[in-house]
Every structure is written in structure tokens, then in C-alpha cells.
């Protein structure tokens, strides 16, 4: 444990080693199901299954185009919400079945509900189980359970009060990652966290000092060697004053975004210049300006441990 007022560097312990970075990608989507699938989804809320005709084949859920010929569907049909089980599998997340709806030619995959796994058999008659609270998604059909009656009907013309298609399905995908730093970034970020210094490596061929460090020089494809300690002091190569707001910003606009060449390195570091008025920055944070890092109180072992760079008068 480190004291809150710690200013000196603790020697890193094994548990402090910078090994990996937790990252998350979250992407919101507004998906368009299209005409046939949109109507299929809309009608689930009314406990009706809508399929599509493709020559001699009927598929459910309804599709705009044939999966084999690519031809547009010749029209929609209503099919009975009952069928026969063609196959099933159970994983830790539940049981999925291949259900061939009566009168159709292509099975659909859905959850199997309320069954006895000891007696479940291929060929079993199953019927739709509907959700109590339809929202316009596939799960308005909650799944299939063993049929309680022998009622069914052949595919028939769609009802006159067919709903318009669901136009949009909101969807969000969240993916979690644990990215390995590897030996080079690990060494750099350890030095940032514990020693408040940056570390680069030298290319064995072109002798450029590369920050962040890496095993191979990008330009020469020659191995690097020889670690170099780098002071967080450098020269501005280019700046841009950011006025717009977007997700992930660490400073409130306007702020100055800069490419900085740290003394002794051959690469450019992207960071921010702070403690300067945006208007003044137009003339002060120009190419050639000298800057020095202002280290944060945080010790996270990333380049955000530098709050910003400050112009050296």
C-alpha cells in the first residue's frame, strides 16, 4: 500500500509489475432489420409467425431474399406456431433446438423451454412460448416447449391487419479485453509509474531512439537494443487547438493537442499542452516551442500520468 502523500518511488513488487491493460469497447447500434424480417419481428408481439415464400420453399423467419438463389421473396405467409424438433444441443447456457415449423422447409434455431432432458427426442412436437412483454425483438418469441395440443394449420395467406415492419432494433455490443503490455511497453510503463521517467530503445541500424520502445525498428525492420532514459522535456513539432467536444476527452475544450519530440528521441509523442490560454497558444505553442511534462499525483503507469506539458518560457 502506498501513502497518499507519497512523493518518492517505491521499488516495484511482483504484484505491481505492469503486465496488462484492461480495455473495453462499447458500441451502440441502431440496426435495420428490413422489410420481411421487420414484419416477422413486429408480428411476434401478436403471437403470429410470419414466413416467406421462395419458389417451393417456405422459410421462417421471413427473409427478403432466398439464401440459395438470392432471388427476392415472392411473398409472405403465416405459419402455425408449432413444429417438430430436428435436433438440439445443451451447453452451460441452456438448450437450443432446431425446430421445423409445420409446412416450412428450413428449420429455425431457438431456445427449448420447460422440458425433461432425459426424455427429449428428435421428432418431438413443440409449440411457441410467447413473451409477456413484447418489445419488437426475436425474444418476443421466448422459445419452444413440448406441444400441449395437436392444433396446427398449413401455411396460409397473411392476415389483413399485418403490422408494418419494425424499422429499428437498438443494440449494444460490449467487448472486454486484457491487453498484454509485453516486455517493451511493460518496461516503459513501469518506469513511468515508479521512476517518473520515460524509456526508449535505439535501433541497431538507423540509431534512432524510439518511443514507445519496441523490439523492431518500424522503418528498418532491424532489431533494437540499448535502452535510453528520456527526460519528459521536448520541442513542439505541431499543435492543434481543439474546440469540439467528444467522448474520451481528458480536458474540457478548448485545449491544445501537440506532437512533441522529446529530447534525445526520434519519434513524436502525442500529448496535450496545458496551463495556457487557447488564444495565447496560437502564438506560444507553435513548432519549436519548448515544453516540460507536468506529472500527475496519480501513478497509473500510463502516459496519462503526465497531466499535460507546460510551455517553458
Amino acid at each position, binding site marked *: 500500500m502506498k501513502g497518499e502523500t507519497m512523493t518518492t518511488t517505491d521499488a516495484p513488487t511482483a504484484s505491481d509489475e505492469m503486465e496488462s491493460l484492461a480495455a473495453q469497447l462499447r458500441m451502440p447500434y441502431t440496426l435495420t432489420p428490413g422489410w420481411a424480417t421487420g414484419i416477422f419481428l413486429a408480428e411476434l408481439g401478436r403471437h403470429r409467425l410470419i414466413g416467406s415464400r421462395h419458389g417451393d420453399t417456405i422459410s421462417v423467419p421471413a427473409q427478403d431474399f432466398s439464401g440459395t438463389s438470392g432471388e427476392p421473396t415472392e411473398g409472405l405467409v403465416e405459419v402455425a406456431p408449432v413444429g417438430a424438433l430436428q435436433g*438440439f*444441443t445443451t451447453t452451460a447456457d441452456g438448450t437450443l433446438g432446431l425446430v421445423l415449423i409445420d409446412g416450412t422447409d428450413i428449420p429455425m434455431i431457438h431456445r427449448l423451454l420447460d422440458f425433461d432432458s432425459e426424455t427429449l427426442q428428435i421428432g418431438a412436437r413443440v409449440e411457441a412460448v410467447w413473451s409477456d412483454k413484447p418489445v419488437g425483438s426475436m425474444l418476443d418469441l421466448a422459445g419452444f416447449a413440448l406441444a400441449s395440443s395437436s392444433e396446427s394449420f398449413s401455411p396460409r395467406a397473411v392476415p389483413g391487419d399485418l403490422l408494418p415492419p419494425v424499422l429499428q432494433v437498438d443494440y449494444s455490443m460490449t*467487448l472486454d479485453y486484457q491487453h*498484454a503490455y509485453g516486455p517493451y511497453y511493460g518496461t516503459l510503463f513501469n518506469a513511468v509509474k515508479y521512476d517518473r521517467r520515460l524509456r526508449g530503445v535505439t535501433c541497431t541500424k538507423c540509431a534512432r531512439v524510439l518511443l514507445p520502445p*519496441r523490439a523492431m525498428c*518500424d522503418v528498418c525492420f532491424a532489431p533494437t537494443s540499448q535502452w535510453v532514459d528520456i527526460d519528459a522535456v521536448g520541442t513542439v513539432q505541431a499543435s492543434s487547438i481543439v474546440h469540439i467536444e467528444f467522448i474520451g476527452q481528458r480536458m474540457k475544450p478548448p485545449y491544445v493537442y501537440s506532437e512533441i519530440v522529446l529530447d534525445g528521441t526520434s519519434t513524436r509523442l502525442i500529448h496535450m499542452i496545458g496551463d495556457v490560454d487557447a488564444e495565447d497558444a496560437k502564438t506560444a505553442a507553435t513548432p519549436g516551442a519548448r515544453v516540460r511534462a507536468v506529472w500527475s499525483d496519480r501513478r497509473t503507469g500510463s502516459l496519462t500520468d503526465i497531466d499535460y506539458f507546460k510551455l517553458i518560457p
Partner: protein
Amino acid sequence: MTETLLRHTAVLNSAHTLLTPSWSDRQHIDLISEAVTRALKGTSLGINDIDFVIDSGSDFLDGRSISNCGFLGAMGAHHKEESRVEEDGLWSLMYGANKIASGAASVGLIIAYSKPSESDVDAFWTSLLEPFIQRPVGLDQRSAAGLYAQRYLAAAGLGADDLRSVSEHAWAAAARNAGVDVSELPTDDAFWNDDFATPLRRSDLSRPVDGAVAILISNAEVAASATSRPIWITGMGSAIDQHFLAAREPDTFPACEVAAKSAYRMAGGIGPADIDLAEVSATSTVGELMVLEAVGLAEKHHGIDLYRDPDQSRINPSGGALPADPIMATGLVRLHEAASRLGGRPGVEATDARTALVHGAGGFGMQNHCVITLEVNS
């Protein structure tokens, strides 16, 4: 017309990093540069001789968009033509071989990389599914394999226990393969016996691993001076099946059959009987049997017969994809394994095989298939 590629493109050398469940102390770039450096080593070619780089990986697996842009330096692609294929590396190889056969380039590097240990592999597979019908019900790579398996086993008159000969062969061969991080056959009872995606057990599903692979290819002129034993790419084919899993054939891979037929045709009308050695990819034991049947190495529903002899070395002598599935690189690793054996390279068991078939799969539930045939001069 169909023989334009014949003997125009050669595999000069290839290498991959150790394939291991987690390279927790290495980045993608560390793995990639190791594979590329080793593929160049011992050849007379250097990075400046490379005309183009084509690579395979997945932005979803890598957790960054257009991930190849960050890997260019490690691939040796600085100021070179570089192109990324979001499919198994075998498709990159096909792309590169076409470039060379067309005369547009002389030497190319084909690279594939994967670090599934950094992400949620089940979520990756599910992300490949269309999101309206199949994804919401919980269909995933495991249940897709289970649904295929139940129908295949019933049609073939087999039981789940019969599949053990497939996975045992794979893991035993991988244990002999220095490139795969397996020291011995797993002894964990649950691995072999517990239900995972019924009727399949954990041992029936491929094990995701981290790694990178690099293949050096060239035209005939460069090959003549660069190696005494070029491995010729004689045929190539690929084909894709329908996306909806339920609409596909229940117990065969017709797209794989189409891919194999076009490779055989391009190779001058050869057939499965002309194949000395096969390296095929699959995400499950049943998938492996269905591939072997689709490429014609076994009769439909009789793929299991190929494993009656536990010491056979014609099918997946490397162990195949079951013990080591570096997703997006798996097929290209198969090509490396086949080329290493045809080339009689050190570190692999000696063989008198002269021809090989290499197969890669892509997409959800093995929707997409690529087949390459190779030949070495006797």
C-alpha cells in the same frame, strides 16, 4: 486456362511462434516480428526484397479497429504495399499467390496473427452472427458445433465416444510438435467426458491459442535462386455457405467440397488419391470429419475410418486445429505445417510425401472454406 497458376508461385520458407493458450507477456507486434524474422532467416532474402505484405487478423479479437495499421512495423511493411484480409490467413495466401501469378509482384510475405487470450472468444464468434434472428436466441460457436454433431453422428451411425479417436490423434500429434504448447495428452477426466455442447465434450472443441505465422512466397524465378526445394502452390479454391446455420446441410460442408474441387481442377485435374498429406482446420472433431469427407479423403460419414490407425501420419500430422486454434491464423499454420514436411525441414518428422492439401475455415460455424494444394519436386 485453369493451369495459369501451376508452378508459378512457390512457398520459400515459413515460421510461426509457439502456439500457446496465452502469450501473456508478449504483444501482437512481438509475436508478429518473431514469426517474420524467423521466416526470413536462412533464406537469401531480406526485408528489402519483399514486394508486398498481406495479413490476416480480426479487429474484434485484437480489440482495435484496422488493427493491422498498428502492426505494420512488426510486419516489415514500412512503405510497402500492405493489405489486410479479415478472414483466415489462407485467404491472404490465396490473394498473395494470385498477385505473384499475375506477374504484378515477385516476392510476398503472408502473415496471420491472433491473441484470443486477450478477449472473450465466445463473444467474438457470436459477433459474427447476424443480430436479428440468430444472435438473440443465444446461438454460439459451441452450440453450433453441438447441433452439427448430433445430426452428423446420427446419420453416420456413430456415438460421441467414437470421436475420441479424432481428438486423441490430434493431441498426441500436437504433443510431438515442438511448435505447439502441449507436453502430453490431457489427463483431465472432465476434458474427455463431461458434456460441453451435447453430444460433444470439451475435447471435441478446438482450443484457442495465441500466436503468429509468416509465409514467404515468390515467383519461379526467385524460387530458383533462393531455395533448392521450392514448395509449389498448384491449386487454390474457396467457397462460402449460407449464413443461416439452420439453412445449411446438417451433416456435410458442400462449400468445402466446391473449394476442394476447384483446387484439384486448377492443379491439373488431380484428386484426393493424389494427396499424400493433409492439414485441415476445424473447430470441432465432427467439423474435422466433415472437412475430410468434403475434400474427398473419406466417403461421406466415414471420416472416422481415417483414425482407425492411431499412428497414421497422412491426416493432420501436426495435430491440426483441435489442440491449437489461433483463430484467423489456423489455416495458414496448416500451410506452414504441410510445407515444413514437404520441404523436409529440420524439426519435423521425415516423410516421403510430395503432395499436400491444406484447408482453412472461416466464419460462424465453419461457413467459409479455403483449400490449397501443394507439391514439391521429387
